[in-house]
């Protein structure tokens, strides 16, 4: 099952601490390689914490990533969140539309459960 979502990468405390503790350490790597999904979306798509999904942007950029249910009502259904890092950046296009800034929040993506 493939569904459309909007992805918002952003900062988290754990990601920030991981920058100081070392980018190759476990805490940082785990934080930037986990996609948060609204609990209702997890249920509808039959996802459990730790399941892997494929996220694809409109321009075809793609990552495979583990999911976890977002805390409480932090994410509305239809919205995904991932901490800034290597994976989130892989989904950005090189184009900045004359601003110097690639569009890196509010990305249209599809998400598909990997078996």
């Amino acid at each position, binding site marked *: 099952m493939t569904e459309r979502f*909007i992805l*918002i990468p*952003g*900062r*988290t*405390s754990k990601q*920030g*601490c*991981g*920058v*100081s*503790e*070392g*980018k*190759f350490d476990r805490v940082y790597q785990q934080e930037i390689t986990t996609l948060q999904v609204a609990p209702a979306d997890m249920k509808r798509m039959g996802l459990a914490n730790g399941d892997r999904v494929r996220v694809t942007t409109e321009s075809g*950029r793609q990552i495979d990533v583990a999911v976890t249910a977002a805390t*409480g*009502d*932090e*994410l*509305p259904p239809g*919205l995904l*969140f991932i901490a*800034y*890092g*290597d994976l989130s*950046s*892989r989904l*950005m*296009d*090189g*184009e*900045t*539309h*004359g*601003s*110097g*800034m*690639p*569009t*890196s*929040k*509010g990305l249209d993506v599809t998400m598909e459960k990997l078996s």
Partner: protein
Amino acid sequence: MATPPITKPIESPATVITDATCTFCGCVCDDIDITVKDNHITDAKRACVLGKSWFYGHAADDRPDCLIEGQPASVAEGVERAARILTEARYPIVYGLSDTTSEAQRVAVAIGDAIAGTVDTTTSVCHGPSGMAFQGVGEVTCTLGEVANRGDLIIFWGGNPAESHPRHFSKYSLMPKGMFVPNGRKDRTAVGVDVRKTKTAKAMDLFFQIKPRSDFEALWTLRALAKSVEVDPEQVKRDTGIELSRWQDLMDRMKAAKFGVILFGMGLTMTRGKHLNSEALLSLARDMNAFTRFVVKPMRGHGNVTGADNVVTWQTGYPFGVNMSRGYPRFNPGEYTTSDTLARGEADAALLVACDPMANFSQPARERLQSIPYIALDPKETPTTRSAAVAFTTATYGINTPGTVYRMDDVPIYLRPALSSTHPTDLEVLSAIHRRVTELKK
């Protein structure tokens, strides 16, 4: 039989550095008491979770001072190789600079000038679009001291300081008991606008969970309401996800405030619309001054990214994305910004100071960077230092080295280092590279 002597390890006394400065984020908290024992930081009083990681996580790295193509080398050899790379390139770029002292930033700009290169900072992928908007609209600004002492309506738009700037609420914006807000939090109304119900949202009195990518529409709705322009309630609800009556209530509160403050994050600058989103927000703050006092400030991430903006502006007239190939500075975001010069395959050498584009840039930009020779300065090992032609391990600013940083409200703060380091400082390495490129360019 003689009793063996009892030996005790000799313990050195702990030293406390009072009012040390944390340079992890743009809050630049300068009230941290650092306890140092045996050249290790054992306590960082008053630091937040990010600050504690910053102080505890920056014990001197035991990597060599310099690596050339991954092999240990002397700093002098590294400087020579770096200078050759930069002077032999046709389109060299200098990038990063937001996590180093302003003294080092100044020398980095001088190198960019000497090599007729392009100077850009991490601002271009942070609040660069806001920097463009400042030039179009201006910034009705103030210090965080004024926010703490006067602000009675605080709006956080498109940011999550509860996670990214944990002490902002308690030190500057929500909790402080100030001259005109003597009861602290009780005298303030806190408003959040975001697409996610974050920890910040939960600390607010009012929260507007807008539709993703509708900041521009929401801001223009408020601009219209400020000027009593009639708007279509159905369209407002459809565009922003919020009832017009709630926006009207917010506008009434904004007009009734004595000192309104808007603090905004990268929810605006990184989302479609970018500088136009920031421009709408800056315009709203400006418009509000027809009714009451209102200010607006971007929430800045890195410890001295504000210093980078200041220094590059003093020296070139522009805050980031500055090209000096013609012998005078030219500013053009989208043309001279690093994401673009790399993704388009234009840059053919780079000097990267305290930044990690190999982890944070788009794939086309990373692929280009991987294919060109570059120099990286960083206290820590990162994906960027691993692929560098020349990698310098440098001392950590604020922990090992003194110097100046700029808080997110453009207030300069002098650093009080806690530990010595065996590694050279960014300033020392950059000064040596500057001397050598100047000689080679003669």
